[in-house]
């Protein structure tokens, strides 16, 4: 638990540097006021904040509070030492290139220590609270409460944006299929079933097992079909073998492709490409190309399924993990990324 410390006497500037960690929730009234602050979000009706991220459908309500105790009832709102007028809640949305919109107030007027937000637009959002006491303001962002256990790639490189204390997100989807696809993918996090060195059971009777092949596109194909409400067909045929969409089909963008038989991206019936300049949503299929560093030709690519926070749930060379993320994070996954979504 982290406490915000405010002098009772008015001060002219923010005193964020005086934050400190406390082992338990405690409210003290001394010459200074210590506020137990841990911005918390959960879907209305949930018993507790989920450890797998907040993901809701448009129309659902998200409860946000300055402290978990306000949501679970251990701290009555009436005893929390801040008035409605002292707390503003803001959000910003992730763009398709991993940047964000500007911070925007949920409401024109302060919402108070606890606020229920009825979602209206799909997307991936960050949240922060602005607390103002005696003219001094502090910003408290909704942050991760633990290191993401699936935030490392197959080589063990941990993406630092998934560390405890880094900004967390909430995701909003327009349709149930997005939650279903995302949940199917999440269920396989940590699995090595799609490792490049291994083979899969034939994806259909007599079909390929992809032994020794990269399987990121097969992972996407199987997760979408397992969800049941976002089917993907076997759109490719090569040497007499029917195949799922390749990463280039999900990317559906410009570029000189190296292999003649995959030179042109094929349409995926029931799915539509959005390109990059779009607000991404959880459950979308995300993809991008890989380039030959000398010729600039596209030699392959990668595909995954977007999680609530912009992470790609993807089959890496060994494990299914969440290492890549849409946000430019120093991990080289901020090449142009395209999103594809299932059409009703």
């Amino acid at each position: 638990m982290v406490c915000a410390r405010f002098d009772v006497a008015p001060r002219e500037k923010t005193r964020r540097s005086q934050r400190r960690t406390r082992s338990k929730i405690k409210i003290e009234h001394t010459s200074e006021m210590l506020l137990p602050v841990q911005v918390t979000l959960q879907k209305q009706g949930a018993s507790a904040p989920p450890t797998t991220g907040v993901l809701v459908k448009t129309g659902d309500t998200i409860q946000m509070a300055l402290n978990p105790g306000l949501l679970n009832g251990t701290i009555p709102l009436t005893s929390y030492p801040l008035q409605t007028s002292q707390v503003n809640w803001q959000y910003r949305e992730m763009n398709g290139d991993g940047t964000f919109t500007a911070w925007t107030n949920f409401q024109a007027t302060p919402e108070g220590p606890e606020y229920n937000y009825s979602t209206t637009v799909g997307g991936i959002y960050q949240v922060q609270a602005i607390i103002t006491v005696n003219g001094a303001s502090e910003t408290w962002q909704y942050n991760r409460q633990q290191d993401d256990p699936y935030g490392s790639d197959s080589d063990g490189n941990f993406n630092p944006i998934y560390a405890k204390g880094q900004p967390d997100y909430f995701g909003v989807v327009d349709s149930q299929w997005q939650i279903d696809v995302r949940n199917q993918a999440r269920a396989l996090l940590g699995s090595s079933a799609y490792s490049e060195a291994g083979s899969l059971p034939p994806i259909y009777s007599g079909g390929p097992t992809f032994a020794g092949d990269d399987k990121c596109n097969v992972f996407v194909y199987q997760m979408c079909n397992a969800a049941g409400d976002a089917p993907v067909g076997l759109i490719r045929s090569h040497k007499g073998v029917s195949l799922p969409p390749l990463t280039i089909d999900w990317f559906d963008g410009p570029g000189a492709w190296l292999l003649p038989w995959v030179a042109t991206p094929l349409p995926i019936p029931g799915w539509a490409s959005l390109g990059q300049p779009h607000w991404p949503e959880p459950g979308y299929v995300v993809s991008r190309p890989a380039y030959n560093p000398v010729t600039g030709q596209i030699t392959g690519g990668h595909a995954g399924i977007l999680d609530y926070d912009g992470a790609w749930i993807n089959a890496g060379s060994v494990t299914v993990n969440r290492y890549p993320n849409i946000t430019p994070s120093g991990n080289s996954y901020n090449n142009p990324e395209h999103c594809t979504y299932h059409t009703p």
Partner: protein
Amino acid sequence: MSFKNILVLTACVALLTSHSAIALDLPSSVKTYLQTKHLLDESGRPLPDCNATLTGSGNVFVQYVLSNWSAMLDNLAAIAPAPQQQKLVIRAIEYLPPRDYLKALNKLCDLNAAGVVKSETLEFAVKARSPENGLLSKNYQDTQVIQLVQRLQALFPKDSKIQGLLGDILSGKQKAVDQKKADDEDVTAPVTLPAQ
């Protein structure tokens, strides 16, 4: 000579020795790339930050390696001591002309024998992905290839898996496997090395 002077002299010698080990002065962009990047966890384990216009930091890195690969390998312990840094260099040298690529692999064998390159990293080099995947197997009768593969066999005495692969390369068996894979995927097979 006083004890103090001996200490100063020792320090100077150490400095000179260390200077010779880092004789290659890398451009800052290459240094930064080696310090901050690692191979992507996806098909082909590609180099990060490459693009179609050849302007990415990955494209710049590869161009530098292709022009300075010999000096870089000579100084590998100083400029890329970590396995993940060495793999960036190894992935880049796969774009060398084939004969130079064979020389580079021989240097990696030297570095393995010297303890600079770990066996796992050398194995990574042997299993080149692109564009030289299959170069050794396709040219299994080439004298330089034979000598290189025999060196590799001596460097992996207890690794039955890599010994199997190397044996298959020398026998010509691996050529058929790699050719079939290339045919299945319609990828361009590695070049046939010209006679020396």
